[in-house]
């Protein structure tokens, strides 16, 4: 930005104007997302997640994990330490893989933002595809860590 200012003051100001306009346009969608996030995180705290991911049946675990991962939103610096703790508690790699991948790729909570940019239909297709990818990743992880015997 400093370089940009030196090269052309006028253009930089124009750029900042665009930044500002874009930001204001998407702000309502962000607010909705924050509202949803704050409520969902209250309803689904870490304790609940640890409890559900540790179920005996691994396939049920994967499904639950991808469900929880889809409906919640967590920054990496919270999600990975949590996954690390769960791993030590004996939760399977494939379940954790399903959880972290859906957490990052599938966003039910980011829906308002995604819809604003790409429309509802594309948003739904993309999230469904991402969920499928996450499930495939989970299964492959399971195979490599010998958690599924072929």
């Amino acid at each position, binding site marked *: *930005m400093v370089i*940009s200012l030196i090269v052309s003051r006028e*253009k*930089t100001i*124009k*750029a*900042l*104007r*665009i*930044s500002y306009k*874009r*930001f204001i*346009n*998407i702000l*309502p969608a*962000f*607010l*909705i*997302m*924050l*509202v949803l*996030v*704050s*409520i969902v*995180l*209250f309803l689904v705290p870490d304790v609940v997640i640890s409890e559900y991911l540790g179920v005996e049946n691994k396939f049920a675990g994967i499904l639950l994990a991808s469900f929880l991962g889809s409906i919640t939103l967590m*920054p*990496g*610096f919270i999600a*990975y*330490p949590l*996954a*690390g703790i769960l*791993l030590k508690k004996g939760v399977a790699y494939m379940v*954790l*893989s399903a959880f*972290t*991948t859906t957490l*990052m*790729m599938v966003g039910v909570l*980011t829906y308002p*933002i*995604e819809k*604003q*940019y*790409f*429309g509802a239909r*594309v948003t739904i*297709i*993309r999230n469904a*595809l*991402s969920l*499928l*990818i996450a499930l*495939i*990743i989970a299964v*492959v*992880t399971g195979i*490599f*860590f010998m958690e599924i015997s072929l």
Partner: protein
Amino acid sequence: MKRNSIIRIAIISSYAIFIALSWIFSFGPGKEISHNFASFSLDMLKVLPCAFILIGLFEIWVKKETVERHFGEKSGVRGYLWGILLASTTVGGLYVAFPVAYSLYSKGAKLGVIFTYIGASAICRVPMTIFEASFLGVKFSAIRLLVAIPLVIVSSILLGDYLTKRNYKIMECK
């Protein structure tokens, strides 16, 4: 769009009232929800202004032809590689990737590359992957990336082609 914004205002204001009432009557769950709201907003405030400033600068300085050459219809395989490379340096998460993707699209990037970028920014951001590997092991991260990247590219190409056939256009709602 009108109806949509009314719903939005209704949601946000009823949420605000709920939080305010919770504080007045010190209702536990309400307070906790507002803490969540505050901490998440702070996290996003650290990233978003920078992201949008960069988007603004990008819109002004980067020529349309440059984007078209590297991310556009004729970019071929390199377009997808650029998309992944760009995604790996993205900070934040999907909510940062969407506006960036929109900017790229409006400068002439093709849909397949756009969706690759979004998918990749969810799964192969460099700082995130290092963090992941330190908690879950390098093997775990390696498997995840090796499986995810091809799948993301293939599904993005399919989705892009499908949408192009249907003459899909991204439009920003004002």
